[in-house]
């Protein structure tokens, strides 16, 4: 088996209640970084903490519970189940946990993301932007400690991307949600509160209150 070193000495602090972005070219290690944070991959070395809890070294079932209860995931594409309705897709985490979601909270999430009229629809009937909003609703519904968004606007045009990031920002501002976003697009990264630049597995720069220009300069 060929092993490649993807991340080297990454030291990253994701503050709670803020939108943090990791920006880098393709193959820079963004997805691997997010996977390590989200308990999808185990780093060979180093540690990951979520809040006060160290998650490196946890067993499979503990990591499963962590992903289910404390992490929300938003991916670039195709992360909705085509055989489930929008509502079932949104509720999947709670259903897998055998939990009931409070009606009030579900309605709030769905209304804030403008999905009230689409609950019975199948994902195939939605536009790319609507699908991403469903993915966000699913990630937010559990009130996770951290939402990991891997290229959430990867398939969207600029207008749609701006709208989606507007939703993410609103969530961070209004509800104090912590979001870690990975993207290759400086335009997307510029919506964050703080941007880390990842290149060849290392953090090479950091931009506070980023603009498109400052992110591009840091890259």
């Amino acid at each position: 088996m060929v092993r490649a070193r993807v991340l080297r000495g990454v030291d990253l602090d994701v503050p709670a209640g803020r939108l943090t972005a990791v920006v880098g070219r393709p193959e820079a290690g963004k997805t691997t970084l997010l996977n390590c944070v989200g308990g999808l991959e185990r780093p060979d070395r180093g540690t990951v903490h979520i809040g006060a809890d160290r998650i490196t070294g946890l067993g499979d079932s503990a990591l499963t519970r962590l992903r289910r209860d404390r992490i929300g995931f938003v991916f670039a594409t195709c992360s909705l189940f085509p055989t489930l309705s929008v509502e079932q897709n949104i509720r999947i985490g709670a259903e897998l946990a055998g939990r009931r979601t409070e009606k009030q909270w579900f309605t709030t999430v769905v209304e804030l993301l403008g999905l009230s009229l689409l609950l019975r629809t199948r994902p195939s009937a939605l536009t790319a932007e609507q699908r991403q909003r469903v993915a966000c609703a699913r990630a937010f519904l559990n009130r996770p400690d951290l939402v990991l968004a891997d290229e959430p606007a990867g398939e969207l045009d600029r207008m749609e991307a701006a709208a989606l990031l507007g939703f993410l920002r609103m969530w961070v501002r209004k509800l104090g949600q912590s979001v870690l976003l990975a993207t290759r697009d400086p335009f997307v990264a510029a919506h964050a509160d703080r941007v880390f630049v990842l290149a060849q597995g290392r953090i090479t720069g950091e931009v506070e209150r980023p603009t498109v220009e400052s992110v591009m300069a840091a890259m």
Partner: protein
Amino acid sequence: MRMHPIHAGKQMGAGAVLCCVVAIGLLIVLIVAQVSGWWLLPMFALTEVVVYRAFSSNVRQRRRDLALLRCFGASRAQVFNGVLTEAAWVGVLGALAGFFGVLILLDILDFNLAVFAAVVGATGAVLAALVPAFRASRIPPSGPSERPPRRLSTVA
């Protein structure tokens, strides 16, 4: 009936389900007809192979969906039980087919024997799905980034 999300993803094709159901049904008919063991054993083996193949190919096709389910917090046990539940449903369908087969093809219906045969058929389906279910439960969690294998294209 509402589907549990563990059954999300690519469903088994109607053809595969039909093959399994016919095989289980035939097995049940043969048991009720009290044919000799020399016929029963190969038929049982054949049923197991058909169900096993159907479920392993289904699990292969659903690899990405199952990895995603694991990502969203499905445990190994849930995935394992999910596949076995589907096998149990196929077994029940097969048992029903077997009952109808017995009613249509055989004159005498020994009810106890038919029930026994149905139980054997349904249990056989679950047994055959054990290995595919175990494999499914070992699929590591991942996002949808894992691309499905590309089809070979024939370019002249």
